[in-house]
């Protein structure tokens, strides 16, 4: 009993430290954002989140229970929609295990909550602050907590934007609205309930998890390399775009499928562009339209916040995905040599 109480007190103390440091810096919206990101990563919390995804045809509402224990795990359990109910994501800081109980199916991907991921988020926040105008205003109350409304507006048009409602006390983000490159509201994330620190015993939670979620997966099949290393190690000639939308920088070059697939990631802090390339392949895809950019024929589709362009040239298949305007997507594609 004693160790558990001490643990809770330590967590509460940490939460208050993070929270109070945020309050001290609350006059500066950029500092609020930094503090908010830290709060998200380092606070111990549990809550019920509601995400509404606006898409053509039918909107999707996801309700999840989330338990976050810094440096230990991030647990997500689906409550809605009925078809996803019971689905669990368990992220132990190394892997994110996505488990569907009915199907007894386990998908494993690199962690979203690792210290490396947190570091990248901090780096991207610095980039975001360069490419976005940040403004703060009183946001009323959410969950009976006074909140600050932070608006992130792109300095360069044709990029996504975001509005965040941040808890004045802890600087935890309680609500987010994301708008696409065309200015359309794409999704809204709201917390329906939230508690600091979480009241869940990590060991008890771990015990209750399906054995499937505790399986030790194989190491990730991808390597993060420099652009030069990727060019050398890839099993084909890697092409790079000569044009990137203003504010975008290369963030990552990754080699997948034993060198047969190259993934280049560019970001402006909030928007992300990925360029995949590999020797000729048939990309199976539904709900797309045939388009032309320059002399090239391509497949194009929009899904959620992203736009995708797929084409093959000189025996290399390219997949370009980004939360940017179609014109910008075409411009990048045309500049690839």
């Amino acid at each position, binding site marked *: 009993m004693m160790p558990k109480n001490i643990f809770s007190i330590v967590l509460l103390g940490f939460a208050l430290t993070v929270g109070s440091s945020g309050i001290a810096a609350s006059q500066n919206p950029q500092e609020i*954002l930094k503090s908010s990101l830290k709060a*998200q990563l380092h606070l111990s919390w549990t809550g019920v989140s509601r995400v509404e995804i606006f898409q053509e045809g039918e909107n999707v509402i996801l309700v999840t229970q989330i338990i976050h224990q810094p440096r230990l795990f991030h647990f*997500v359990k689906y409550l809605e929609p009925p078809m996803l109910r019971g689905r669990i*994501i368990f992220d132990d800081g190394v892997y994110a295990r996505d488990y569907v109980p009915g199907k007894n199916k386990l998908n494993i991907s690199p962690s*979203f909550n690792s210290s490396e991921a947190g570091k990248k988020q901090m780096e*991207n926040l610095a980039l975001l602050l360069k490419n976005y105008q940040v403004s703060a205003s009183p946001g009323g109350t959410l969950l009976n907590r006074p909140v600050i409304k932070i608006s992130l507006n792109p300095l360069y048009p044709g990029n996504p934007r975001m509005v965040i409602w941040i808890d004045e006390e802890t600087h935890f983000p309680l609500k987010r609205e*994301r708008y696409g490159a065309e200015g359309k509201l794409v999704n809204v994330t709201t917390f329906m309930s939230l508690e600091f620190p979480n009241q869940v015993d990590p060991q008890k939670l771990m015990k209750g998890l399906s054995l499937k979620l505790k399986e030790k997966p194989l190491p990730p099949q991808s390597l993060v390399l420099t652009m030069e290393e990727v060019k050398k190690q890839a099993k084909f000639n890697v092409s790079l775009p000569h044009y990137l939308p203003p504010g975008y920088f290369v963030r990552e070059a990754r080699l997948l499928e034993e060198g047969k697939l190259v993934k280049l990631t560019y*970001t402006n802090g909030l928007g992300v562009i990925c360029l995949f390339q590999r020797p000729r392949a048939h990309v*199976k895809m539904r709900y797309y339209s045939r388009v032309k950019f320059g002399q090239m024929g391509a497949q194009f589709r929009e899904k*959620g916040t992203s736009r995708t362009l797929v084409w093959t040239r000189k025996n290399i298949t390219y997949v370009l995905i980004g939360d940017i305007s179609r014109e910008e997507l075409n411009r990048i594609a045309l500049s690839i040599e």
Partner: protein
Amino acid sequence: MTCKKLRNKLSAYLDGELRNREKRKVQSHLGQCRVCREQLGQLQKIGILMQNLPSQEAPADLEAKILKRTILDQGKSKKKLIDVRVLWQIFRPDLEKVFIGAAVLMVIVGCCFYLWNFSSRPEISINYFEKEYVHSQGMSPFSGELTMLISLEGE
């Protein structure tokens, strides 16, 4: 009987080749028609004149020449017919075979190309790329958790 019909039969009437019934019809018409009677008279006169013409000996080799020419002509026409027919007989089935063979070959080549094209072009679902993309979006601050949720949304 009309005059026209009668004139067609006058020659046969003079040569005694008509049957009795027709002969009577002709005689009956001639009894009534002066123009036809004159026509008959002229034909009789021509016949008498022809009979009185002096006869002339045909060259000795005429018959042989005619026979030879006839045989040659018959041979030529037969030969032409045979050639065309033979050629047609020889080539027609082959052409059919060639066309069928070419069609089968084209189908085989098409199938091989299709299979080669597919075997050399691995099929990858766009979901794979989209999941990778969503994972990269997790690098953006304030979108990690949402990213995690959306990454599950397949096609």
